[in-house]
């Protein structure tokens, strides 16, 4: 609070003046001329009548007027509930609206009619109402995976339409990526005043610092709302395992979960009581009769902040994701021993991912079909048989991450780095060059951890791109660091650094974990594991008939996106692909090339209980960034109210005078 605000608000203390004046006036009756005074009998006036404060309505009006004058003096420091874009010297503004459409935004607080998401949309539309010609608007969805819904445009109507059509989902929150996307969208714009407005409940790690700084127009969205939700319900034989997340003890207290047949109103099979604690808890319904072959439904009994996540259809147990890792165990393991750092990283990322160490790439595609993804660290090239097997496997949907290093450039006879890179890549000793972190924005907030990376050298990929390659990351001098290439249904990722600790620090940076996470996501979406988290896209080669299980409401959650092939020279299937992004949890039945399959979309349990984390110094940063931009000059409105009060006082006095006269 500034000195000016304090001073203005201190004016409010003058509210005591009219009180004192009325108190002083108390007991001092006004002397009135009255010629026939001698005809008036003197009456005993009691002390309570003397001490009674007169004209209480007038006193209230005067006190209110002074208080409003104090507020008027404090304006425009006083925040107004209506959001608007404050602009310096009338200059145009480049504004990125980051709207969280994750599951936790469905929560409706007590005494509130609108959900967090509806409040966020309304706030964003209010901001757009104050946008002017020349302002550039970008819209980013902060539900995982973060998406650039609208690239920066000066067409305000487009932005308004995108926000109006945005629907809440069951995605988890991905603030880091969303903010990075928003900053990247504004980066090239010529505007001097750039802002990133975040409408989120912040159920995620704090967004990384950077420019432009974050602006939280509606910090109230982060207010806690009690909720319990079902993240996952899986049946394995006679057991149904349910993962439930709660925001706090209060929400979990006296909460019960029921297992019912067919529907939420179906026959009750079993019932469990939740432990009164926050975070996730796993509950099991055992001895479920195997004869119950119909659909099973689990339901949380007590209503809470989000009603939708209180019901879930039980899915059949499915196999998880298997990733094969080819790495030199001696060079890539920590000095303290243990598994190679890549394997440890996968285990840390997702316990459901099965990591299988491989000594070398198998020679046949059949041997690779068990793997959804492969990570190859500093390979000494691939034999012709291995290359053929890899290409077949990739075109069928495999995902491979190749981390090229000094060994990759000294390939053995007849071996080649294809399909990771064109043969003839060069190793360059260059310890001083740094990664261009801004080019790795798709890794989210963890990309920042790759700054000041120490390495002895790098593989130059600038002449190693195969047809269809897209550069996803660069070094500061413009040399490519990361390639991505689509081959059939699969994806090839090639990085110019290995994980060996004697070569670089890449493996111990969080950005590397983000890269591995990306591999998992790709593997899930392309190879099609039976159970995916919400928001993970499914990619299919041809038209797919999708039949959701659980009603029409689930069907609406499927967002089909026809993607033109990014690889015009792809050797297989150059036609149109189809990507399906399930945005709501549930069980889906799909028919892929005539083969029926069932997929379960689960909720990220973190989303259910994650609370906003405030990084050190965030309070000051939020205060500094929010106040001047969130404030609306309410002076005219306050002034009108003060005038109205003055008029009310005059009217009251006139009325009183008339009453006395009559």
């Amino acid at each position: 609070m500034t000195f000016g605000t304090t001073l203005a608000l201190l004016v409010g203390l003058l509210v005591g003046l009219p009180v004192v004046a009325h108190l002083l006036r108390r007991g001092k009756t006004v002397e009135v001329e009255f010629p026939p005074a001698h005809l008036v009998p003197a009456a005993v006036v009691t002390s309570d009548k003397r001490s009674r404060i007169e004209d209480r309505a007038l006193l209230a009006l005067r006190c209110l007027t002074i208080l409003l004058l104090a507020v008027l003096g404090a304006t425009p420091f006083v925040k107004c509930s209506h959001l608007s874009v404050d602009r310096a010297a009338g200059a145009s503004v480049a504004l990125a609206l980051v709207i969280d459409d994750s599951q936790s935004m469905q929560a409706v607080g007590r005494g509130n009619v609108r959900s967090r998401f509806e409040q966020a949309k309304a706030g964003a539309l209010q901001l757009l109402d104050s946008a002017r010609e020349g302002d550039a608007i970008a819209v980013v969805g902060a539900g995982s995976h973060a998406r650039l819904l609208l690239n920066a445009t000066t067409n305000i109507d487009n932005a308004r339409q995108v926000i109006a059509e945005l629907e809440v989902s069951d995605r988890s929150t991905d603030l880091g990526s969303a903010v990075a996307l928003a900053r990247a969208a504004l980066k090239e714009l010529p505007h001097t005043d750039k802002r990133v407005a975040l409408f989120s409940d912040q159920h995620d790690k704090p967004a990384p610092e950077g420019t432009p700084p974050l602006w939280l127009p509606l910090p109230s969205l982060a207010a806690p709302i009690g909720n319990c939700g079902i993240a996952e319900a899986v049946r394995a034989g006679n057991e149904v395992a349910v993962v439930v997340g709660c925001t706090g003890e209060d929400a979990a207290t006296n909460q019960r979960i029921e297992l019912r047949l067919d529907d939420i109103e179906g026959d009750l099979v079993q019932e469990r009581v939740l432990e009164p604690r926050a975070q996730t808890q796993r509950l099991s319904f055992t001895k479920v009769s195997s004869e119950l072959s119909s659909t099973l439904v689990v339901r949380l009994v007590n209503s809470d902040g989000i009603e939708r996540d209180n019901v879930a259809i039980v899915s059949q147990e499915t196999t998880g994701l298997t990733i094969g890792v080819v790495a030199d165990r001696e060079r890539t393991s920590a000095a303290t021993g243990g598994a190679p750092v890549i394997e440890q990283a996968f285990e840390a990322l997702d316990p459901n991912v099965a990591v299988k160490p491989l000594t070398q790439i198998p020679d046949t595609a059949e041997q690779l079909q068990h793997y959804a993804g492969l990570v190859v660290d500093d390979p000494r090239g691939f034999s012709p048989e291995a290359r053929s097997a890899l290409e077949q496997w990739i075109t069928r949907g495999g995902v491979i991450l190749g981390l090229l290093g000094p060994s990759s450039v000294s390939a053995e006879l007849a071996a080649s780095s294809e399909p990771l890179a064109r043969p003839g890549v060069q190793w360059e000793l260059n310890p001083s060059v740094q990664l261009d972190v801004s080019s790795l924005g798709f890794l989210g907030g963890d990309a920042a951890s790759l700054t000041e990376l120490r390495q002895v050298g790098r593989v130059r990929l600038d002449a190693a791109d195969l047809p269809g390659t897209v550069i996803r990351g660069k070094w500061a001098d413009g040399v490519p660091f990361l390639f991505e290439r689509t081959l059939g249904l699969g994806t090839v990722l090639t990085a110019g650094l290995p994980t060996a600790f004697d070569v670089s620090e890449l493996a111990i940076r969080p950005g590397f974990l983000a890269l591995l996470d990306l591999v998992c996501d790709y593997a899930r979406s392309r190879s099609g594991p039976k159970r995916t988290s919400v928001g993970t896209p499914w990619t299919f080669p041809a038209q797919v008939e999708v039949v959701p299980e659980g009603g029409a409401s689930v069907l609406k959650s499927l967002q089909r996106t026809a993607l033109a092939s990014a690889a015009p020279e792809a050797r297989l299937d150059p036609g149109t692909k189809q990507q399906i992004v399930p945005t709501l949890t549930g069980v889906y039945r799909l028919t892929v090339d005539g083969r029926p399959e069932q997929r379960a979309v689960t909720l990220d349990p973190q989303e259910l209980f994650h609370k906003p984390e405030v990084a050190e110094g965030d309070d000051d940063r939020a205060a500094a960034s929010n106040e001047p931009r969130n404030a609306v000059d309410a002076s005219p409105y306050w002034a009108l109210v003060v005038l109205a009060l003055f008029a009310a006082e005059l009217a009251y006095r006139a009325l009183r005078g008339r009453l006395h006269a009559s």
Partner: protein
Amino acid sequence: MNLQLINWGALAPLRLRAKEVSSGLYFGHHRSQHRGAGIEFDSHRDYVPGDDLRRLDYRALVRHERLLVRQFETETDRRLCLLVDATRSMAYSSAKAKASKLAYAGLLAAALTRIAVASGDLITLDWLGGENATGLAAIGGKLAFERVVEAFEQLRPKEDDSEADARLTTESFERRLYAVAKAARRGSVIVLLSDLVDLPDIAASEFATLGNRQRSTVVVRVLDPVEAHFPFRGVVRLKSSTGQHVVETDAAVARSGYLDGLAQLSDKWRSALLSHNGRLVECTTDDDPVEVLRAILDMSAPVINSTAATRLDGQKS
């Protein structure tokens, strides 16, 4: 209170307002009780020796073979004697009143004068209290109206009236009353315009005695609306015009007592006047002066068994 000037308020200019008020009434020549020479035919009677032969009705003689004398109404010069209370209390006007009581009394006096002038009557004007109060001897014609208006316009109530000066002493009241009685001939109408507040106790009985010798007396009690209704609330501190009489009271408690006192004062004047064929008219400065004037003229007519006092809100007592 600054009494330098009369608060004429909405009643100014007096000349025009007085003409408006008087024009609102039907007025004309009032008839004399004396029959004889005149213009307006009244009746016949048998001729008696000594009658003026010019009054002999020859047509009646031819038709009826009787000597009949024609009788006519004679127009008399009934005198209007105005006595106006100019004590300090008459200068009072409340915030919402149209004008002061003295201004209202002046309006009534001027309107009465105009009516009297139109009827050919003479007018006298005298004052109770006041400074620079110019009395008028019997005067008639258009000049009378101008003189009365000028007298009101020149009136300057005293600045430093003491309580004793503000309230008329018995002696000064009787002295003024004697002057009025001297000027009022038989058949005169004596009109007192006052709030009756600052008059001595014997004023009612003394003034009522002027009703002898076929003179009519009318007392017009002019009050401010605040005085008539006592609309105060809560604890009030009331002071008289001079400020020497101060009373602090609870208005809710004192209201009934005050109104009773006011009614007793009215009753005292009414009963005193009634015994001498006099009348009391009560009005406030908010009342329509035309109606007040009509009431005064009705009361001044010597009608036996008429109402003794009239309040202008329609109640007659």
